[in-house]
């Protein structure tokens, strides 16, 4: 569809329940090709679930999701595999394979997915590790030997290793010191600029959001309550957004602790 050609990712009215707990209540969202969307929102608001629905790791109950113009919710497993090949994903908990050394984690998609030989794949892996600030000797360690922040960076290196067209980052800077967080922010910006990748990033870190976003969307109670260019975020006229970006406990957003 020509009117869709500029949209790399589009979600329409996506609903998702777990048991009788409704998590997504009609999410509408889109990301233009080569743009960076940042999703903000409170803990447990369904940000990770939204990403997993786009990836196809979770099947939405109702609603439509298009990736590059193709409807993913009704895809055959072969088509889905082809779509997945253009994705990179950084998981919130890094999700490194602990049976493999760090470098093989980074090279996994190159070796298994793209059929590269181990030697070439290792070279690329070492280069990607360097870009996230890790030395080649880290590549020989097992993931269990790394700190949480290092695991996160390895996860990031793995997500970008195959130079995917669409990259999902689930809290890329959580657990990193402010300097490394900024290095990672730069890296994400570079990915978008150099690879022309389209990215969807989840973060709680407003400094990071301001740096990497073209657009920002806020998820609250299973819906997108605000979205727009990042320059508008300070004039959102939305009290939820204002409370969130100022990190104030007072405001319309009630955290579970207050209800309990």
């Amino acid at each position, binding site marked *: 569809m020509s009117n869709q050609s500029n949209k790399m990712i589009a979600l329409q009215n996506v609903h998702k329940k777990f048991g009788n707990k409704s998590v997504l209540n009609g999410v509408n969202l889109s990301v233009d090709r080569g743009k960076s969307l940042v999703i903000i929102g409170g803990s447990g608001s369904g940000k990770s679930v939204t990403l*997993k629905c786009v*990836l*196809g*790791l979770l099947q939405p109950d109702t609603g439509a999701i298009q990736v590059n113009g193709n409807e993913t919710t009704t895809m055959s497993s072969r088509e889905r*595999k082809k779509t*997945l*090949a253009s*994705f*990179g*994903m950084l*998981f*919130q*908990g890094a*999700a*490194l*394979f*602990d049976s493999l050394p760090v470098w093989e984690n980074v090279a*996994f*998609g190159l070796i*298994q*997915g*793209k059929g590269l030989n181990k030697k070439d794949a290792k070279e690329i892996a070492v280069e990607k590790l360097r870009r996230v600030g890790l030395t080649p000797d880290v590549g020989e360690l097992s993931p269990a030997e790394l700190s949480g922040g290092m695991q996160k960076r390895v996860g990031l290196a*793995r997500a970008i290793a*195959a130079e995917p067209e669409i990259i999902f980052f689930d809290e890329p800077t959580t657990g990193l010191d402010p300097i490394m967080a900024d290095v990672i922010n730069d890296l994400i910006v570079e990915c978008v600029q150099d690879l022309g990748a389209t990215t969807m990033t989840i973060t709680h870190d407003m400094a990071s959001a301001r740096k990497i976003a073209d657009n920002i969307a806020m998820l609250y109670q299973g819906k997108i309550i605000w979205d727009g260019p990042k320059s508008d975020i300070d004039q959102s006229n939305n009290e939820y957004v204002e409370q969130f970006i100022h990190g104030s406990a007072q405001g319309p957003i009630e955290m579970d602790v207050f209800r309990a």
Partner: protein
Amino acid sequence: MPNPFAIIGRVFLSALAEIGRIATFTGHSLASIIVPPIYWRSILGQMWLIGYNSLPVVGLTALFTGAALAQQIFVGGSRFNAESVVPGVVVIAIVRELGPVLGGLMVAGRVSSAMAAELGTMRVTEQIDALVTLSTDPFKYLIAPRLIAATITLPVLVLVANIIGVLGGYIIGTGRLGLNPSTYLQVTSDFLEQSDVISSMVKAGVFGFIIALMGSYHGYNSSGGAQGVGKATTNAVVSAFITILLANLIITVIVFGGAS
């Protein structure tokens, strides 16, 4: 007061649903075994883990069981002056039943639990999701190698167990019960038939498949963090035990079931 028939009905229905899920899982696994790619390195690694590491426990089980069996049959047989049947009964009992069943149960205790724990941890730490995003089918990469390895390895282990079990009987029979060594071996080989060995190996292969299937099924479908993995591990062992004993009964009835 809850209606007891309703409870029985619900338990029965949920058992049927579980059997249906296992059947679907088995079908999916079998399909992934025959379709390339085949991960030879994982298969060999699993064979090593299952086979070599289980040898001591399986060997000791067989040795002690064979020895105890010889002692019991000697005591029982001596009431009818039939001490000379000891070697024959020992070899039949070991090869037809005790070797495969005890070997299968011992390996199930070690291997089903380990597989469930490993795959369960991979599930709850999102490593299985990460595999999918790296264009790798978890059924082919994780489950097929385990099923293949266990199905190949168990017959080898049981063969060794059978030999050691007979040896256990021989040691007690000749060392303690005063049976003639060369007669013992002669009677053993007279009683043993090729069909006994074949059925023993078939049982072992089936049990190996069950061990890997139950470990994989419960691990792959686990949820809910460390507690969920613990539950999956227990369920894997219990269901492997019961399924092995049931399969043993079925095979025994089919192979030796001629009422005479």
